[in-house]
């Protein structure tokens, strides 16, 4: 068995340092080594988006990167979107208000993908929101309530600085779809 390596990551603001095999994906490291279980295993090949986390703000399929590769990074999961007092954050409140979770298994990944999309402050149409979430699969809702929630969260956040609209690439984890 290979030697262990120590990976240090700031998970939702808490510094976590754990030794594990160098071959562990970030997803396995988070779930099985660090005990952070809100990123879910759904496919292991970067398609479903259930394992999406933010690595230094960038949505990332945590099943496709090794933990050792992100040593020193800041990792945000759905739990990282909570208010400091543990109550639901603004995006999460929108999900709650719009019944955007049914079985809830895709929800943590969906939330961080949506959070990354909203982070630039740009106003998106429903079609653009859908495009931004196309790397995150949901089998329960038909996506409508999720798009409703993201649209509402977008409307509630401070408006973007006026300026030309850029046709930037949309966010969302999970390449290949």
């Amino acid at each position: 068995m290979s030697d262990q390596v120590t990976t240090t990551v700031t998970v939702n603001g808490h510094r976590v340092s754990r030794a594990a095999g160098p071959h562990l994906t970030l997803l396995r490291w988070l779930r099985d080594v660090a005990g952070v279980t809100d990123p879910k295993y759904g496919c292991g090949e970067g398609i479903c988006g259930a394992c999406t986390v933010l690595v230094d703000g960038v949505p990332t399929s945590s099943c496709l990167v090794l933990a050792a590769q992100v040593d020193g990074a800041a990792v945000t999961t759905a739990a990282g979107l909570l208010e400091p007092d543990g109550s639901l954050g603004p995006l999460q409140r929108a999900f709650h208000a719009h019944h955007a979770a049914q079985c809830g298994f895709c929800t943590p990944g969906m939330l961080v993908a949506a959070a990354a999309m909203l982070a630039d402050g740009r106003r998106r149409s429903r079609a653009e929101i859908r495009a931004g979430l196309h790397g995150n699969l949901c089998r329960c809702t038909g996506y409508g309530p999720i798009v409703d929630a993201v649209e509402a969260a977008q409307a509630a956040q401070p408006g973007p600085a006026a300026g030309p609209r850029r046709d930037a690439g949309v966010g969302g984890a999970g390449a290949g779809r």
Partner: protein
Amino acid sequence: MTGRRRPVAAAAAGIRTSKAGELRVVGQPLPRHDQAEKIAGSTRYAGDLAVPGMLHARLVRSPVPSARITRRDAAAALAVPGVACVLFGEDVPHNVIRIDVPGQAVEVAALQASMEVLATGRVRFHGEPVALVVAETEDALAEACDLVDVDYEALPAVTDPEQALADGAPAVHEQGNLLGEWRIDRGDVDAAFLAADAVVEGSYRTQAVDHAYLEPEAGVGWLDDDGVLTLRVATQVVEHYRDVARILGIPESRVRVIAPYVGGGFGGKEDMTVEPYLALAVWRTRRPVRMQWTRQESLLARPKRHPMRLRYRTAALADGTILAQDIDITADAGGYAYLSALVLLYSAVHACGPYRAGSVRLRARCAYTNNPPTSAFRGFGGMQVVFGYESQMDRLARRLGISAADIRKRNALARGDVLPVGQVIETEVLLAETIDAVLARAGDKPAPSGPRKATGRGIACNMQSYGRLVWLNDSAAAWVGFQLDGSLTVRCGVPDIGGGQASSLAQIAAEVLAVPVDEITVHFGDSALTPLAGTTTATRQLLMSGNAVYEASVRLRDAVLRTVAEETGQPAEALRMEPGQVTGGGTLVDIRDALVACRRRNVPIEALGTFFGPKGRPVVRDLRADRVFPDFTFGTHLCDLEVDLDTGQVRLLRYLAAHDVGRAINPRSVHGQIAGGAAQGLGMALLEEVAVEDGVNLAGGFFQYLIPTATDLPDIEPVVLESGEGMGPFGARGIGEPPIGPPCAAVASAIHDALGSRPTVLPITPERVLACAAQSRPLPGQDRVSRR
């Protein structure tokens, strides 16, 4: 003959109808109580639990679809450091999973089919479990699984269900390849066809699809302090503890199954998945064990939806009245029985759709093959036939020059009508109203966006049973108890698979007992600690557990009101529950005082309710029964789409889905079920297929098995009608399965409208769309072409 109407009284049908205006909590779009934790990321699903000291388990599966096992050797695997054990079939105390195949004559198949927990001599499908490996770490497990040495000697494989039923086909099972057969013979079909003004014929094929819930099969097992084998697994059926006990040869009372919130079921967690293997691993090692299937394993080895070949001949009068249906169905059961015979029974009973069918001749058979096994999937055989009967309705409408809506309304079932199988429709049917609802909301058909585009509109109706087959003696129990502070505890064994099953129970109890929903806690899905409520399948939980909670709540309410009446001298009829108090006739008693009074007077402040489903006799192969299901849910979907005539790409523009849900206990959950079911059906219509070649399952992952993304679907618009006439609490009907029925037919209908030619094979890929476009040159007497 069908079509004769019998008078049915609502009370006789067991309907607890309700008036929307009299309800306080039921009918409110309340946030489900499970939402906040799921959105916070703190819900602990089956695979999220880690138990200190736990081992890890994985299956070694057959790489071939049909073979004799000639050698098994675990020596190299056992030599891997950290491997706890490698188990073969001989190590399983009772190496058999029994499957009841009801109603079949002995010449068709054994009355009971079975499969081995771990195959010993013969494998019958690609992915069949052969060995179970248990190890200290996932890494050791992976290494050891690769080293389990199994030799296979290939046997002839049969991979086509019709060929499987032909003389001389290789036998998948010794007793022959015909697993199940159902027949309906009502009236003089041949005479009806002779008398018909129009006859339309069609053949339709549906494909194998995967449930593709986001949560793969997973669970953790351990022995508790009293030696009870405890499995916390993603399942729709905690009652599988009985199957586990039988396999291990221990009393049923020594096995406990806990279902935490499940990350999607859709029928795929109705049969056992990890349960027997987890149980064996725990039993053998006496240590906690976790088993998590990979997505690839889930796609490879768990049963799929039955591919079906449907042949319909439909006879009608010039005014559209259906005179007869002549139907032949062949389904692919795969290598083992699972629930195939029951799925096919659903197909047979639902095959004529929500219409008076006249005379009916139906033959439905399912055949063993060496393809991936097939079993329960939302709609359960009642949905493949929608693609058949709705295609026939469209073809008939075109032949006769009647609109799609009118021909459906002309033949729509109504209360008192008799289904071909013999069951009387006992509740009001709002089929025509659902048709009108989608058409009224849809407005005009959209215009094409360019010269090489065509737009089309299609509608499709369906009926789908809710509640289990009536001879299964179905029941559900629930316990409802006040706490001394006036809050409420509900205990019910229902597994919550994401449809708001537990949350709806809180809303029902809240309505009856006037306790705010946020003061109600529902404990659910534990075969040892919550009263057994049966499976979360067959669209039965609102009917069954809902009624159990309703009955317990009513009993508890009446006991409290009687007690307050005795305390105050008011007649009990004058009293009612209000939030925090009992009031009426000038009396106002704090609920906490009322509960203290109950205890002083030896009146229980808890109640156990058990609801028994409607009963009936088992059917035999030749179907004729007064009742097969408790009742049915009806609906109509409308699809607007645009076809790219150069590429065959289909873009969904608008999708409406109307169902009469009787009474929406929680409109949000109802909307969620309708939109989600429609989305899953649209995936089947346009994208999804488990590709199988010579019995080899090619669906290697989500990159090869495409389910709809957010960009593939339009906003699905649920339309909820409330007749107040269902057999669930407050007149609710089940809505879990019905919305997956119409989409395949609605899409095909819209493509028919756009191109003038109809796709008859699913999924409707761009290639198949282009083939339709190529066929659509208008000829005299052919369907009109509405391309613009």
